[in-house]
C-alpha cells in the first residue's frame, strides 16, 4: 500500500448526446499494481480508459498522473505521460514486420537502423519474457502474437502505465496464462497496469484490486483478496431492476428450429462456435446471453446462411416438414420456403443500406419476387408507409435516406421490415442497443406480439434485466460454447452472470 499513485481520476463524467457513458467516476491505480476494471458490456469501461489514452476528452472531472493534474487531449499527450493502451482492435500495419510496427512513429531523433531497433526491442522481450519472432509479418501472426506486438509497442515507447482492454477475449487459456505471467513481471517492474475484463476468475487470479462500474457509474473498489466470484458478480450486475415488460405464457409451443452440434470457424481458422445445440420453439422467445464476441454473431449468421459450418446441422420444421439449412445460401433458404427473418447487429452496414430511402430498404428482402425485370415499388411503398405509421417512425417521409434517421427509427424500419415478411423464425441481435427507453419498449412489444402470433424468436441481448423479463428461456454462451440454458421466469441475475464469465477450463473442472 506504500506504492505511490500512478493515476488518479476524480469525478470524471463523459456524455455522448443523451447517453451518459461515465458519471462521476473516481479511480486510483498505484505503481506496481494490477487493477481490474470490471463491468458488463456498456458499463462504460472502455470509454473511461479512452479518456486516459487521449481518444476522448472528459466533459467534467480531473486526471492526475503521478500526483500532478494533466490534460490529455490526444494520443500524443497520452504517450507523453507514459500511458499506453492496448485496444481490442489492434492498430497494426499488416504487411509490416513486428519490429517495423513497434518502431512506427517513434521520434527518437536517432538514425533509423532496424537492427539497432531490433536489439532494443529484444531487450524488452527478454526482460518480460515475451515470445515472438520479430521478423514475421503481422498478417502471418495469430491474434495472440498480434497482441504481444501491441504490448511491446507500448513498452518500447516507455509506457509506465499500461491499459489492456479485454486482452483475454481473443486468447486461448494457455495464451492467457502466458500473458498473465508477463503482466506479473511488469508489476514487479513497478509498472501500473489496468486490465478491463468481465471474467471473474481472471480478476481473482491476477489482480490486486478491483474497481467496478455499472451502467456508467462507479460502484466501488475492493481488494481482490477480500473478493469472491459471488461478491463481484453482485457488484457488477447489481440488484434486479424491474422493467415491467409484458410476458405472456407461450401458447402451444412446437419445435421450429433445431440446431444440432454446430461448429464454425472464423477467417483466422479459430473456432468461434463449438458444438452448439438448442431448439427454438414457436410462440417462445429464446434469449441468448453472453459477453460480446462469444460467438453470438456467428451463431445467427450460420443459421441465416451467411457463415459456413464445419460441422453439425440446422433443421427447420413446419407442419411435419423438415428442411436442413446447413450450407444453404440466403437465397436458397428463401427459395425453400423457409420463413426466416434476421435483424443483424450492424444495422446500417448489413441490415439496411444507409444511402437508400426507406422504400428501397423495404425492398431488400422482397425485390426479387415475381418474374418482371422491373421493380415493384408499390408494395414496398405501402409497407414503408404502414411501418412509419404503426411504429411511429419519425421521418420527413418515406423517401428519406435511412442514415438520416435516428438510431431508434433506423431500428424500427429494420425490425418492421423483417416482421413484415411474416416469419416463422425471427432472429434479432442487440435490437435495443443505442435506443432510448421508449423505442426500446416499442421493440419489446413488437417482439412479444410476434411471439403471440406463434413466431419462434431468438433474441441476442446484453442487458440481463431485459433478458430475464422478456425471454421464456435464456441460453448462455461463453467462448462459443453453451454454458447453460435457464428458465427466464425463475432465472437469477447472478446465476447468468456466472455462466457468462466462467471459462471453458472451469466448465470442464465442474463436470
Amino acid at each position, binding site marked *: 500500500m506504500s506504492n505511490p499513485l500512478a493515476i488518479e481520476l476524480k469525478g470524471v463524467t463523459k456524455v455522448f448526446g443523451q447517453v451518459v457513458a461515465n458519471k462521476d467516476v473516481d479511480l486510483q491505480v498505484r505503481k506496481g499494481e494490477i487493477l481490474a476494471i470490471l463491468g458488463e458490456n456498456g458499463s462504460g469501461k472502455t470509454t473511461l480508459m479512452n479518456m486516459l489514452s487521449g481518444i476522448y476528452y*472528459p*466533459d*467534467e472531472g480531473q486526471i492526475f498522473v503521478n500526483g500532478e*493534474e*494533466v*490534460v490529455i*487531449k*490526444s494520443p500524443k*499527450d497520452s504517450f507523453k505521460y507514459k500511458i499506453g493502451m492496448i485496444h481490442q482492435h489492434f492498430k497494426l500495419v499488416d504487411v509490416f514486420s513486428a519490429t517495423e510496427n513497434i518502431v512506427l512513429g517513434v521520434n527518437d531523433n536517432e538514425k533509423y537502423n532496424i537492427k539497432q531497433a531490433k536489439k532494443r526491442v529484444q531487450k524488452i522481450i527478454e526482460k518480460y519474457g515475451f515470445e515472438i519472432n520479430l521478423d514475421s509479418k503481422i498478417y502471418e501472426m495469430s491474434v495472440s502474437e498480434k497482441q504481444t506486438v501491441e504490448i511491446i509497442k507500448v513498452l518500447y515507447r516507455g509506457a509506465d502505465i499500461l491499459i489492456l482492454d479485454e486482452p483475454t477475449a481473443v486468447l486461448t487459456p494457455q495464451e492467457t496464462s502466458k500473458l498473465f505471467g508477463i503482466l506479473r513481471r511488469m508489476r514487479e517492474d513497478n509498472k501500473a497496469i489496468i486490465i478491463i475484463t468481465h471474467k471473474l476468475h481472471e480478476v481473482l487470479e491476477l489482480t490486486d484490486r478491483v474497481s467496478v462500474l455499472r451502467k456508467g457509474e462507479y460502484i466501488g473498489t475492493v481488494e481482490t483478496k477480500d473478493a469472491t466470484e459471488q461478491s463481484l458478480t453482485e457488484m457488477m450486475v447489481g440488484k434486479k431492476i424491474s422493467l415491467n415488460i409484458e410476458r405472456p405464457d407461450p401458447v402451444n409451443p412446437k419445435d421450429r428450429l433445431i440446431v444440432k452440434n454446430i461448429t464454425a470457424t472464423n477467417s483466422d481458422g479459430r473456432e468461434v462456435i463449438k458444438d452448439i445445440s438448442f431448439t427454438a420453439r414457436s410462440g417462445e422467445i429464446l434469449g441468448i446471453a453472453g459477453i460480446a464476441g462469444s460467438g453470438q454473431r456467428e451463431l445467427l449468421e450460420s443459421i*441465416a*446462411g*451467411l457463415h459456413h459450418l464445419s460441422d453439425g446441422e440446422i433443421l427447420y420444421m413446419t407442419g411435419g416438414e423438415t428442411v436442413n439449412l446447413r450450407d444453404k*445460401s*440466403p*437465397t*436458397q*433458404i*428463401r427459395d425453400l420456403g423457409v420463413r426466416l427473418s*434476421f435483424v*443483424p447487429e*450492424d444495422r446500417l*452496414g*448489413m*441490415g*439496411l*443500406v*444507409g*444511402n*437508400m430511402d426507406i422504400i*428501397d430498404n423495404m*425492398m*431488400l*428482402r422482397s*425485390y*426479387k419476387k415475381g418474374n*418482371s*425485370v*422491373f*421493380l415493384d*415499388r408499390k408494395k414496398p411503398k405501402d409497407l414503408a408507409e404502414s411501418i412509419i405509421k404503426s411504429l411511429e417512425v419519425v421521418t420527413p417521409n418515406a423517401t428519406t*435516406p435511412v442514415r*438520416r434517421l435516428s438510431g431508434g427509427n433506423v431500428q424500427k424500419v429494420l425490425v418492421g421490415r423483417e416482421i413484415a415478411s411474416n416469419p416463422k423464425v425471427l432472429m434479432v441481435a442487440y435490437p435495443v442497443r443505442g435506443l432510448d427507453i421508449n423505442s426500446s419498449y416499442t421493440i419489446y412489444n413488437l417482439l412479444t406480439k410476434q411471439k403471440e402470433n406463434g413466431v419462434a424468436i431468438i433474441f441476442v441481448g446484453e442487458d440481463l434485466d431485459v433478458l430475464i423479463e422478456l425471454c421464456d428461456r435464456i441460453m448462455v454462451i461463453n467462448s462459443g460454447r453453451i454454458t447453460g440454458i435457464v428458465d427466464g421466469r425463475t432465472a437469477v441475475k447472478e446465476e447468468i452472470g456466472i455462466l457468462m464469465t466462467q471459462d471453458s477450463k472451469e466448465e470442464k473442472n465442474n463436470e
Partner: protein
Amino acid sequence: MSKKQKTHEPLFHIAKRDSLPWYYSWAIRIIAIILALMVSALLTLFLTDENPISIFSTMIDGAFGSSRRIWNLLQNIAILLCVSLALTPAFKMRFWNIGGEGQVLIGGLATAACMICLGGKIPNTLLILLMIISSIAAGAIWAVIPAIFKAKYNTNETLFTLMMNYVGIQLVSYFVNIWEVPKGSGTIGIINQTNQEGWLPVIGEYDYLLNVIVVLVITVLMYLYLKYSKHGYEISVVGESENTAKYIGINVKKVIIRTMLLSGAVCGIAGLLLVGGTNHTITTTTANNRGFTAIMVSWLAKFNPIYMIFTTFLLVFLERGANEISTVFRLNQSFSDIITGIILFFIIGSEFFINYQIKFHTRKEVK
C-alpha cells in the same frame, strides 16, 4: 488548470455534412463554374488582350453559331453521353472502369472489320445487323475480361482496365496497317466511300440525327434500368455495401460480371456510332479520349443519367467554345484542354463544400 495546452486545440475541424438541400448544393456547383469561367477568362485575357465579353461570346458562337455547329455540338454530346452512360453502371457498383477508351475503340474496330471484310458481299441490312452485334459483343468482351479477374482474384480493376485501353489502341493500330488505303498512308481512309455499304442510315438530311436519337433512347433505357429494374437495384446494393448484398443473398461476382458486360456493350455501341455512323473510318484516336472524359461526366452527374445530359453538355460546350477561342484568337487547339482542366479542378474542388462542412471551434471552458 494548466492553460498552456490550449495552443494544441485546432481552430476548426472538418465534419461530414449530413445533408444539404439540392438547391444549396447546385448553388455551390454553379458558383464553382462561374469562378472557373472567370479564371479562364482572365487567362484568355492575359494571352490575347481581348475583353472577357468577347471571349464568352466567341465561345457561345463556337458552340451555337451555325446549324452546322449546333449539329456538331449535338453529335459530340451524343457520343460522349453514350460513353458516360456505359461507364455509369460500373461506377454505381464502385467498379472503376477506366477502360472506356479501349472498349469504344474495340467496338469501333469490330464495326470497321465488318464493313471492310463483308461490305458488298452480303446485303446491306444484314451487314448493319452484323455490325451492331459484333460491336456490342466486342465491347462487352473487352470489359468483361477485367471483371472476371476482379470477381475471381479481386484484381485491381482501375489498373487492369487502364492497361486494356492501350492493348486496344495497339490492336486498332495493327488493323489500320493491314487495311490501310492507299498502301503506305498509315490510314484506312473512308471505308466503302463509293457504295456506302455499312454506313448507318441518315435520317432526313441530318447526318447525326440517328446518333442523337440512339443515344437519347439509351439514356432513357439506362435511367430506367438503374432506377427501376431489379438489376439496377442490385448494382446499387453491391456498390453501397457488399455486406448487405451478401445478407440478402445477392451473388456479388455475378453482378460484377453482368454489369461489366453491359458497360462494355454500351461502349461498343458508341464505337459503332463513331465508325458506322459518323467517321466511316477508324484510327487509334477515334475515341478521342472520351473514355476518360466520360468518367468525369458520369462522376460530376452523381451517376444520374438525366443529370449526365447537362454535364456532357457543359464539357462539350467548353471544348467547342474553347476551340473557337483558339481559332479566332489564333491560339492553338490545346487551349480548350487547359480551360476544361481548370473548370474540372473547380468543380471537383467544389464537391468538398457539398460533402463536408468546416466547423469553427467555440472554445468550451472545462471546469
